[in-house]
């Protein structure tokens, strides 16, 4: 199935690119919320990677990881938000 192989590889490349880009945002910040937003997106990207990998390898079980990932990413966001509400530093440069 050449088309699928091609698509999968292309997807991997695009996702990798996206990952690099958002990683830059994570490094740049400047504020914690900006970094959390980046982290959130990275979680989604990871979901994407997993889905693609599942297709690439034909092993569906990997999707379970994606399920959990979606959940935990959300919780992390809530945690960070709470941290900010609790009067943590909005920017700790």
């Amino acid at each position, binding site marked *: *199935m050449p*088309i*699928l192989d*091609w*698509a*999968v590889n*292309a*997807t991997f490349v*695009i*996702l990798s*690119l*996206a*990952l690099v*880009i*958002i990683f*830059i*945002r994570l490094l740049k910040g400047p*504020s914690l*919320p*900006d970094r*959390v*937003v*980046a982290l*959130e*997106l990275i979680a*989604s*990207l990871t*979901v*994407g990677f997993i*889905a*693609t990998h*599942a*297709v690439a390898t034909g092993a*569906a079980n990997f*999707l*379970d990881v*994606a*399920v959990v990932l*979606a*959940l935990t*990413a*959300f919780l992390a*966001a*809530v945690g*960070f*938000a709470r941290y*900010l*509400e609790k*009067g*943590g*530093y*909005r*920017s700790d440069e």
Partner: protein
Amino acid sequence: MMSEWITAFLLLLGSLLMLLAALGALRMPDLLTRMHATTKAGALGGGTMVVAAAVFFDDGAVTARALAIVVFIILTAPVAAHLIGRAGYFVGIPLWEGTLKDELKDRYDPETHTLASEDKPEDRKSSAPAEDRDRD
């Protein structure tokens, strides 16, 4: 054969949406505008790619899992966006200078964590500037 084409399409679409979100997060001027990008594109992209997997495997269990993921993303993405957005706003992360208006300004009382529905005249004077808002 057909399903492969669909899978391929969805995968590429999803990943492009992700890329879009990433670019948005990188290029947008302030927190809230960045979140516009990530919340929407990120959620849809992730969902799309999971659906792609579901189509590819065409198996009940996988479909169930894919569905679970999509539902979960749709349920949580906006909530998370709301939490981070308001938190960021309330700790005084500056808005882009291009911002036209801010009707929420000075209606939040960090001491009591209450948010008023309209301006009370004395709020103007009493409320502290953003810098002093966050303690320790």
